[in-house]
């Protein structure tokens, strides 16, 4: 080699510029949406100065408020139910003795991630209508709980695997019974991961569109379903504003999940 610089395989010419372009591809469209949401002109693409007025219009829209209320109620119930179910499941998979059925259990829990959303949406619709269940919000809470389970489970399972079983063994050596061991040792160590899983479940529930659209009925419209209805009517500043709000909520929650999950990492 005749070059003055030593060979550095970590540096490929042009690759950082290329990666920067991909990140522009990821984020520029979102940034454009946010900018348009603050545009005071009703003609979305003509800039006429900075304004909060579309956010005010959205906040004063009763239909949007009702839909947002439905979304939050469903997300809270689905988060609590799925996180509880996922915590138990993660403990069984990582700490339990599953002599048979481990791969079946893993495959079953991954189902909501594998089956395409449209299939989940229409099969759930068929199921509820076949049973004659027309309970609007309750149907949605059940459907959301199902697909939130794997999202809540993943961080909890990863944490259990990372921390190993040594502290629990120490507790067992000190004659702690299983319940005390869980309350005093496992749960406190697991709490950051459980919170992270719960936040992820909340975001996934809040953002769900397709399944909610097929399962919801007249009185149980969720926010994304309502926004979709607005989008079908055309590009308006109100759509940009409400989309920006939902975007901000997702980013804040995911960042929170990351920070919470990282805390106590070396405990």
């Amino acid at each position, binding site marked *: 080699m005749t070059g003055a610089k030593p*060979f550095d395989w970590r540096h490929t010419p042009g690759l950082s510029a290329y990666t920067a372009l*991909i990140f522009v591809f990821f984020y520029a469209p979102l940034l454009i949406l946010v900018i348009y949401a603050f545009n005071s002109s009703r003609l979305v693409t003509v800039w006429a100065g900075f304004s909060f007025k579309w956010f005010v219009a959205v906040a004063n829209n009763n239909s949007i408020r009702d839909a947002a209320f439905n979304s939050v109620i469903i997300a809270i119930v689905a988060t609590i139910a799925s996180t509880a179910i996922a915590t*138990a*499941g993660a403990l069984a998979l990582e700490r339990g*003795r*599953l002599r048979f059925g481990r791969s079946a259990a893993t495959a079953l829990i991954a189902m909501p991630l594998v089956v*395409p959303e*449209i299939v989940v949406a229409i099969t759930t619709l068929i199921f509820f209508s076949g049973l004659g269940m027309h309970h609007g919000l309750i149907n949605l809470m059940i459907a959301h709980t199902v697909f939130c389970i794997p999202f809540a489970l993943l961080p909890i399972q990863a944490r259990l695997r990372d921390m190993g079983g040594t502290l629990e063994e120490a507790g067992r050596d000190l004659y702690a019974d299983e319940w005390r061991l869980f309350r005093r040792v496992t749960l406190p160590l697991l709490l950051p991961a459980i919170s992270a899983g719960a936040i992820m479940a909340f975001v996934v529930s809040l953002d769900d569109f397709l399944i909610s659209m097929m399962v919801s009925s007249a009185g149980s419209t969720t926010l994304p379903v309502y926004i979709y209805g607005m989008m079908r009517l055309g590009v308006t500043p109100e759509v940009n504003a409400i989309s920006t709000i939902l975007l901000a909520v997702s980013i804040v929650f995911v960042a929170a999940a990351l920070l919470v999950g990282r805390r106590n990492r070396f405990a």
Partner: protein
Amino acid sequence: MGPNRTYLLIAPAMLVIGIFMVLPLFLAVAYSFMTANPYGGVTAPATFDAYLQFLYQRDFDDGLVFSPSYALIILRSIYLAIATTAICLVLGLPVAWYIVCQTPERRRILLFAVTLPFWINTLIRTYCWILILRDEGLANGALRHAGIISDPLPLLYNDGSILLGLVYTFLPFMVLPIYSTLERIDPRLIEAAHDLYASRAAVFRRIVWPLARPGALAGATLVFAPALGSFLAPDLLGGGKKLLIGSLIQMQFTSSRNWPFGAALSTVVTVVVLTVFVIRSRKAQEERR
């Protein structure tokens, strides 16, 4: 933890998913063999009509007439899903490699930046492209401003815009699994190759790609499966006129009110997707051996 308690802990997850997700899948298979009720739902008698509809249509005399329009929609969906997967692979592999080459702190930030779009509403992410691509949108506005065009280009409502939306939605699914396999790369392998006068291309072909392949395979399934059943990209960016399987299924349960046909289509999608996943996990096991 004893086996009894273990099964007690795993039971809620398995029951909830089993009853509310797997059981409905089988129920949909049953529905696909029923007769459509024009008011929604199904009635007796059991028939194969829904599956015949893939290739034939009933004329007024109740005879079967060959009609490939649905078959073409299915083929177009498969073609677009494969194209999405290929484009995501080509775009995503260099990004994954770039992230692997960074310091741990920068890796964390970049990984967060790749993951974040996944947690942002697909509805909103897809809608952003309407703002850019429509006739009065940003792209046409910029081109007109620059004097390149006088009439807006039809950027929206075609296969290209659908493809763009699909790639935009699913690209993170390709980057992350490739990254996680490349992350384990042993730098000494590359240094040894270099000492033996291997070019960058040779290093990529002989060392990086073989290591990346299981991740690329995982990424390909993670992109292909949801792309095949996607609804939002064809609906919003295809204008609902250029149908794909996802929007076709959705239509059967709303405007068309043909539940058996919708159930049959969704059964086919499920079978295809599960087959892809099974083949992949078989292959992954083989490669590990």
